[in-house]
């Protein structure tokens, strides 16, 4: 269970570039929920992920994971519980190390003792099994430096690395945006399977409204550092892409109208 209480973050405070990226945000994600996050650029989606993963610290508010306060826990310590995949396929893997070395590294998350030499036969067999499930033929390329693989393959391996030791929370930050449509579809279906099999609590940012509705069981829409819309269950099931677009533009235009009113008011 992930809980954010009144979390705020302002970038460049007290300067002309001041930007309120997160505005007293409250969010409760129950265990096993798969939430898709949508919103325009600059809405605060990535900031939300950065706050949860610990890449940036909030100005105020609390972040709890399974009732443990992780607000100020260092990034690498949270990483043992939170898996995160970025849009850039290059970010999740170490290019000059082999596929199996990358997997071995991420597999360390589950181990208390980090001793011993090399990769054991048992581990290698396990990695091979896991890679085979991706159906990309990577199980026969375990000795290949991962930098030689394509972006889609690297992203699939990153996904495996994040979930091989089941995390309490999985953050997917537009992880298919840099891939071609066919590969994106493939990576999405792998994502869906892994998340469902392991019942991983997941947050996924996407710009694809269709996959935002197809995947997962709850959708939130962010704007200006706040949650604008939040729906699940029957309401979400009935929702079509055009409905959502309507709701989005309505919500946004209300915002735009407000801005316009403000501007007019100021100019008066």
């Amino acid at each position, binding site marked *: 269970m992930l809980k954010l209480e009144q979390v705020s973050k302002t970038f460049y405070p007290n300067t002309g570039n001041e930007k309120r990226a997160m505005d007293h945000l409250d969010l409760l994600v129950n265990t096993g929920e798969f939430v898709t996050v949508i919103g325009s650029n600059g809405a605060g989606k990535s900031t939300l992920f950065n706050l949860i*993963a610990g890449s940036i610290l909030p100005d105020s508010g609390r972040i709890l994971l399974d009732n443990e306060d992780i607000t100020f826990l*260092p*990034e*690498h*310590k*949270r*990483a*043992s519980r939170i*898996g*995160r995949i970025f849009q850039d396929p*290059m*970010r*999740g*893997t*170490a*290019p*000059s*190390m082999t596929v199996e*070395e*990358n997997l*071995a*590294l*991420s597999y*360390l*998350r589950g*181990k208390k003792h*980090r*001793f*011993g*030499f*090399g990769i054991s036969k048992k581990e290698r067999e396990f990695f091979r099994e896991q890679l085979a499930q991706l159906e990309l033929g990577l199980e026969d390329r375990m000795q290949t*430096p991962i930098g030689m693989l394509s972006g889609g393959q690297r992203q699939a391996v990153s996904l495996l*690395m*994040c979930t091989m030791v089941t995390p309490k929370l999985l953050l997917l930050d537009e992880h298919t945006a840099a891939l071609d449509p066919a590969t994106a579809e493939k990576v999405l279906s792998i994502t869906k399977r892994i998340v469902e099999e392991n019942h991983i609590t997941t947050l996924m940012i996407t710009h694809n409204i269709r996959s935002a509705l197809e995947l997962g069981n709850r959708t939130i829409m962010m704007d200006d550092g706040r949650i604008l819309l939040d729906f699940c269950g029957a309401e979400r099931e009935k929702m079509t892409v055009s409905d959502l677009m309507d709701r989005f533009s309505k919500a946004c235009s209300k915002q735009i109208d407000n801005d316009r009113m403000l501007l007019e008011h100021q100019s008066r």
Partner: protein
Amino acid sequence: MMSLYSFLSAIELGLIYSLMVLGLFLSYRVLNIPDLTVDGSFTLGAAVAVVMTLSGHPILGLFAAILAGAAAGFLTAFLQTKMKIQPILAGIITMTALYSINLMVMDDKANVPITQQESIYTAFGSLVGKQAQGMVLSLLILILAGAAMVLFLKTPFGLSVRATGDNESMVRSSSINADLTKTAGLMGANACVALSGAMIAHYNCYAEVRMGIGMVVIGLASFIIGEIAVGIFVKRKGVLSGVVAAAVGSILYRLIIAQALELNFSSSSLKLITAIIVALAMSYPAICDSIALFRKKSQAKSGKEKMGGNLSC
């Protein structure tokens, strides 16, 4: 041609300096950090070894040198990771501080000889004979250090050290403390460098406060020469090939310098020769690329002419 004597002593020196190159392999290649601490920690190792030898503990002195080097590496890593000082600057700060510290260790003398004392080489010489002492002992210690390095980099922790130089954000998101891996790496690297300095002090029978100057550049030149040489035989860059490249490169570098001296270059021009070697070795990949590009271009050109210029657009 080079005399047998200068050939053999070049190889001996190459073997000892390859410990230093091994350290640079760890910091420069594995961790991807340009670590300038080396200039200071090399001398530190020599100073500590000499002082310990003077008090009658030559072998213990080697271990003390290793520890001192590791401490120097720790300081650089601390400045880099916790104080957020740029890697190059952090190294320069430690190096500068070490100059004074080295003088303090050597009791404010710029040059401390140990000609009267029994060095590790003379002690070892009584076992294997005077002729072979330099070669055998240096080789032995190099093999030990090289094996330790390979084994270390194969452990899970070593794996995280390698990944830190490769993709730091991935290391952090694999729940590994990247500050810790950097610190361990820099400590190990400078321990190797200090051991090399200590061995050189024993080999030359003295420590000199300026003996470490330019060591980073020499180390880089050696390693890159080694990489090119090993690259001819082994295509895939791995841990083992890196360690071998460090040893091979160091020996090749000493042979080049010995040859330059044979050709009656004065020893005052050695730094110039070193700089030229480094510049050439470092630009080798770029030179290869531009040659390849030039070839492709001229190929494409001649191809186009054959097609009657139809492909021009």
